């Protein structure tokens, strides 16, 4: 058997693939964060809670409405996006005039409140969600559950779609222009507050989308988001705050790095991303894909 650094190549291939799967979640979540930060300049600490909300909505749709996973994949992000729009309209939009810190504090408090409510309602250990796709494929070097393969493809498609929409379409151009100079864009007759609401709803909806994809793999529990959110923030920082392409690429990349760490030195697997973050911050404070300020 061929070996690389004392690890069989086959095992390495398996871990690379797993890294890519985890990277899909990092990419989706950091994409939403990057959009909200890049366009609204809000550090959305409620992102983890919105991810959790996506998973819970999926579960509740199944348990109370009998709605299958594939419908929930469309419906749940819309519901979470709607919740996001309400939050933005009624509360967050009042903070735009103030320092960024207020947005951060507000969303942090909101996350605690949402998670606390769900813990009160559903308990801390959470609830199971059945696998929508059973079985898997034997790739020779590992057994790949079909569902995990689907996750990579779906999330990649979603990331590319969102990137395309923001960077290449007219709506995306409005969005970017509205954050650059809201007064000017408004004077052209564009409804800027509505655009901002839509942006926050999109970011929240993406978090919800990741939550739906996570439901069959991870335990659907109130704290599922808070475990993940810190890593995702590190991904955004490494990619460059506000850089949409950076968030996507870094998400997949760090997923793979983390996967490899789990083979070579498992104890460090939860800190490797932060070590990389520290190094990147020292060498390139604006992040790998960020524009130097």
């Amino acid at each position, binding site marked *: 058997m061929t070996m690389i650094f004392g690890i069989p190549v086959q095992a390495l291939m398996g871990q690379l693939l*797993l890294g890519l799967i985890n990277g899909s979640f990092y990419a989706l979540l950091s994409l939403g964060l990057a959009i909200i930060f890049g366009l609204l300049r809000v550090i959305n600490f409620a992102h983890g809670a919105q991810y959790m909300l996506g998973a819970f909505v999926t579960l509740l749709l199944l348990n109370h409405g009998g709605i299958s996973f594939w419908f929930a994949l469309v419906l749940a992000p819309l519901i979470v996006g709607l919740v996001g729009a309400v939050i933005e309209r009624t509360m967050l939009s009042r903070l735009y005039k103030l320092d960024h810190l207020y947005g951060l504090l507000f969303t942090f408090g909101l996350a605690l409140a949402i998670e606390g409510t769900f813990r009160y309602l559903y308990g801390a250990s959470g609830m199971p969600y059945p696998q929508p796709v059973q079985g898997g494929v034997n790739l020779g070097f590992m057994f790949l559950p079909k569902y995990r393969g689907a996750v990579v493809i779906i999330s990649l498609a979603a990331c590319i779609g969102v990137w395309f929409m923001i960077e290449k379409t007219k709506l995306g151009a409005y969005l970017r222009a509205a954050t650059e100079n809201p007064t000017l864009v408004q004077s052209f007759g564009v409804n800027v507050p509505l655009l901002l609401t839509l942006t926050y709803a999109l970011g929240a909806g993406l978090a919800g989308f990741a939550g739906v994809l996570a439901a069959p793999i991870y335990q659907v529990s109130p704290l599922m988001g808070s475990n993940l959110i810190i890593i995702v923030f590190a991904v955004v920082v490494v990619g460059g705050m506000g850089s949409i392409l950076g968030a996507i690429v870094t998400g997949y990349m760090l997923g793979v790095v983390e996967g490899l760490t789990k083979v070579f030195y498992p104890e460090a697997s939860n800190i490797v991303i932060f070590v990389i973050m520290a190094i990147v911050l020292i060498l390139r404070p604006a992040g790998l894909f960020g524009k130097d300020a």
Partner: protein
Amino acid sequence: MRKFLLSTAAVGLIATPALAEISDGKVRIGILNDQSGVYADFGGKYSYEAAKMAVEDFGGKVLDAPVEVVTADHQNKPDIASNIARQWYDTEQVDAIMELTTSSVGLAVQALSQEKKKITVNTGAATTELTGAQCTPYGFHWAYDTHALAVGTGGALVKEGGDSWFFLTADYAFGYSLEEQTGNFVKSQGGTVAGAVRHPLATTDYSSFLLQAQSSGAKVIGLANAGMDTQNAIKQAAEFGITAGGQRLAALLFTLAEVHGIGLEAAQGLTLTESFYWNRDDASREFGKRFMERTGVMPNMVHAGTYSAVTQYLKAIQEAGTDETEAVAAKMHEMPVDDIFAQGGKVGANGRLIKDVYLMEVKAPGDVTEDWDYYNVLATIPGDQAFLAPAESGCPLVQ
């Protein structure tokens, strides 16, 4: 009028002479545990309800003094727990603290309580240290410990041919001690340990570790972790076809609450050890149903253990005729434990309750006949095999 007040006061004094034996005129029990984190279902507010149930079943009074239960969330942090305990003892007349999930917290509060000369009864933490090297005269360990889990689950699987093990271990003290004790027991039964991988606490994705365990070729994958960590590992093991591939999973610390959390689809076939199962006999069923009505969940060994601990503490006060710590602790060491939780249980000189524990197998979804009927009881492990004898525990009080 004044005369009347004086005379009623005098009558009151004569009528309740025993009240004088109870400090501050009441008995106050504190339930200190994790109510918001990963162990909130394992113990949490349900343990508080169990304690209140025990007080109500006892009549709400002992030696004519009212009994109260107070509770707080220690967030799994020893410093927070110690502060709360200190405040309870110093300013709020708490007489005993119970539950104390999480080993580090249990050890800290037990040591503090010895200093304050108060009783602790631990039903939530796992470490054998509580009644081993760090035992105290007023500290009791009630529901289970890492030794019982190792003997129960480890022993059963080796007997069934699961003689090579690979561990998935939470990277902190509790995980190490569970891995070590189970590994030693497996080896003493003629088995081997193929290896172990240590994962950080609160990891969400276990697929990488599971693949390593899979490629080790070991017959049994021992999960030396707890709470949500174990739940995610089991769920993902099913997904990656590990159990379908012939390897067995052994959840070393897993209770009814966690089985309910991940659902039978993922949990079926798991072997685990608990010291209580609600559907085991008439008395436990009756208790389980009453608990269910109150809380909406069936009790696990921590909840039932807390009920038993509170009941035994009140019985000891009754027998001793006082709530003075020395006298009550002496009674608790001496009295047998017979209730819904333990039958013929004995308390060792190190404070360990020695009672039977049960080896369970989680049923397949199709075999369940009523809600929460999740286990088949495979075997009863007698208390003296499940727990270390006081003389072997390393407790300095026993020598």
